[in-house]
């Protein structure tokens, strides 16, 4: 479906309900996996995905078409996920980094994680990266988001994103070799 038609349908009160269903159907999977990598726990990812779509619905009239709608939703999802984890950290009187460490340490007990030792080590390596580098690595490595698209989402130049991904890979490779 043409994106411009979908946006028109989303903004028209007569057609928006069905258009929102289409939008959710089109993007729920990609947004879920993006959110899940940030908040780590499935139930939290479900909450954040709900909040993301609700925010999209509430804000659709303000969407001005400067970027693709998917990039715009991805930005909302990223902010919602980071805010969620920051709130969780505040409630536990800890930091964003520390809560990520705690959540990853608990992964072996998580019924919705069945990674092997190397996958667990990879997750531990990822959370050693600065927040934006984590986003770049996860988007490129797991979801194969194109740099052009990532540039719109993260509002960063493609060159800087490529450099960031390269650096992230190097750090992770070093972690996988050197950490026990």
């Amino acid at each position, binding site marked *: 479906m043409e994106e411009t038609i979908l946006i028109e349908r989303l903004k028209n009160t007569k057609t928006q309900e069905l258009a929102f269903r289409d939008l*959710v159907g089109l993007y729920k999977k990609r947004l879920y996996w993006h959110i*899940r990598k940030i908040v780590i726990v*499935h139930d939290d990812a479900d909450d954040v995905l709900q909040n993301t779509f*609700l925010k999209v619905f*509430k804000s659709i009239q303000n969407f001005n078409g400067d970027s693709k709608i998917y990039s715009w939703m991805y930005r909302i999802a990223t902010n919602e996920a980071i805010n969620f984890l920051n709130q969780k950290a505040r409630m536990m009187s800890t930091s964003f980094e520390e809560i990520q460490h705690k959540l990853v340490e608990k992964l072996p007990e998580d019924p919705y994680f*069945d990674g*092997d030792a190397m996958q667990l080590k990879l997750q531990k390596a990822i959370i050693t990266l600065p927040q934006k580098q984590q986003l770049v690595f996860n988007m490129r490595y797991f979801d194969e988001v194109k740099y052009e698209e990532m540039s719109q989402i993260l509002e960063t130049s493609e060159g800087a994103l490529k450099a960031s991904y390269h650096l992230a890979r190097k750090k992770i490779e070093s972690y996988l070799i050197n950490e026990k």
Partner: protein
Amino acid sequence: MKKPSENILNQLRGDQGGYKIPERYLEDFYVKPDFNSGPCA
């Protein structure tokens, strides 16, 4: 020749890092109504 760590990264690529989701979660996902605000899908 690739370094072992690169080989590992290439092997792990494509998987969602060991994360799983409940059966039919994505198929059954819908946005729950928010009665205080606008429309929902």
